[in-house]
């Protein structure tokens, strides 16, 4: 240090630096830029919700529940509805629940509880992660070959069962990964205590590990079902109808082997129609789909936050 500064003394300078809190302008600008990038994404979400609601709400005001039960049409906007689409989505989801959840949770239990750390195990793990990254439309091609062309005797061709099986394969890696994480979060001391009092591996899993991991598994399950509900691309390949759909007078079980459509498929088809009436219908259908997916996702998030246990 030189000149007049020395007269102040080093201690004074340090004291002044420490006491006078300089406003860090650069730091503040940086912080607000970061916040802005977060807010821009949320702004898009807000605009999306506002746009869709303002376009679609009129349909519910005019027609009420009639829209929810109406039949699929791409010609008459006045009577077209999403009744068959909701039914189709429901059928598809039933198949996904019955197929993907047991196999997914079972696979997770094997990978986390039984499998030793071998090359084969590591290969299966890498394989599952890669499956999670395969584009949805590729699963559509798999479904087309496997369920429509090779196994039509079981699925009946382009039916709700085929759509459900295709989506079950699509969400399977997500179910396995989220369930594995939930199982991994259960501490080993729980397992050791069970084994220590003479329980077998399965008895420990059934009575202690699974109950502890249940909230996590449930969260992952809900998220994968909501993913399956919104998925469109693979269903276009395995025959979700985009045009006319006959009303099935069949009973519940026969409907799985009937032609079908789903909510997002109808949204896709209607969005290609330029008339204002169908724009409103598309928005109304989106409102139905968003209401279900947002509620499901919110439930999953709340479930996770509430039951997240720190061991």
């Amino acid at each position: 240090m030189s000149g007049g500064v020395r007269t102040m003394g080093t201690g004074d300078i340090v004291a002044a630096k420490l006491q006078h809190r300089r406003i860090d302008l650069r730091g503040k600008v940086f912080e607000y830029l970061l916040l802005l990038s977060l807010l821009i994404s949320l702004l898009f979400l807000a605009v999306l919700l506002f746009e869709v609601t303002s376009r679609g709400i009129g349909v519910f005001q005019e027609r009420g529940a009639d829209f929810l039960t109406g039949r699929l049409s791409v010609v008459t906007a006045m009577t077209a509805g999403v009744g068959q689409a909701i039914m189709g989505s429901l059928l598809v989801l039933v198949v996904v629940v019955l197929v993907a959840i047991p196999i997914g949770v079972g696979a997770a239990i094997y990978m986390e509880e039984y499998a030793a750390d071998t090359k084969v195990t590591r290969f299966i793990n890498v394989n599952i992660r890669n499956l999670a990254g395969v584009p949805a439309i590729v699963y559509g091609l798999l479904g087309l070959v496997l369920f429509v062309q090779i196994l039509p005797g079981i699925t009946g061709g382009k039916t709700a069962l085929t759509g459900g099986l295709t989506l079950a394969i699509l969400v399977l890696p997500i179910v396995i990964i989220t369930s594995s994480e939930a199982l991994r979060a259960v501490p080993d001391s729980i397992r050791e205590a069970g084994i220590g009092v003479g329980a077998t591996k399965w008895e420990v899993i059934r009575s202690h590990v699974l109950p502890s991991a249940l909230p996590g598994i449930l969260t992952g399950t809900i998220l994968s079902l909501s993913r399956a509900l919104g998925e469109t691309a693979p269903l276009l390949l395995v025959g979700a109808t985009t045009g006319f759909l006959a009303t099935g007078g069949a009973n519940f079980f026969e409907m799985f082997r009937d032609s079908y459509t789903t909510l997002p498929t109808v949204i896709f088809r209607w969005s290609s129609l330029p008339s204002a009436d169908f724009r409103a219908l598309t928005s109304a259908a989106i409102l139905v789909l968003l209401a279900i997916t947002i509620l499901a996702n919110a439930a999953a998030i709340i479930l996770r936050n509430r039951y997240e246990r720190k061991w």
Partner: protein
Amino acid sequence: MAAVESNLVDLSGAPARRRKEEIIRRIFQSAAAVSVIISAAIVFSLIGRAMDFLFAVDVSALFSPSGWFPRRGFYDLRTIVAGTLIISLIALLVSGPLGVGAAIYLAEYARPRMRRWLKPILEILAGIPSVVLGFFALTWISPELVQRIFEGATLFNLTAAGIAVGILITPLVASVSEDALRSVPVSLREASYGLGASKISTTLRVTIPGAISGIAAALILAISRAIGETMIVAIVAGGTGGSPFRLNPLQPGQTMTGAMTALAIGSDQVKGEALTFPSLFFVGLLLFFMTLALNVVSERFVRRVREKY
């Protein structure tokens, strides 16, 4: 001594109980094997038909100057690969800054209370079906944003699709980047503060460099998702029915996934070119290997962060 021996035998448990254990283990094992079978099934079902296509198609049709018009026998790969790359690039330009910025804010700046509110909202955005974002791109992003800013943009254009895909993958970028930033040990930040560095210097010079492979992984994963995204492209890119080779992002174009959707919707009604259907599988195989390569690279980067700390 005889008593001890019989005890040892007893410890192995009742045969019926052991048999049950073994059966249950086998059931779970076969569930895990399903995932391997699925991978094999994907590869086999794609390769067979893709080969049919490659053997039957005239090589010149794969590089046809007319563009991608499967119904007329023109399968110009450059057209759909260029469309895919343009949309992915725009999506990356949107989701990169937005996602990484949001991640830095959530990991380094947000108070716990604020984080508790912001994070779930971001997760809700992640749960919006892509078909919904596609409709939003067609009815709002394209007319209200793209066409207002860029004169001469058509209603169906690659930019609107790219922006919508970018918004779709922003939560993913944010979530993977945030994990990477959080895995940088607090002690490194404290060391930096201890030397008198400000928060911004610490973030820019210590935390971000420490998490850089994780952030790179997030961006690579984002490209992979963007390449595979289908519904937004099918709705707003405007390539249904085919497209000439174009590089102008303000005009309609066709991508690999868009081409597959167009083929899938049309294949039931139109029996035109005999090769349109097998071409679907060829494009699918190409898409599969592109995304697989990106995912494997991304995984490498994530592992690098994990090993570092």
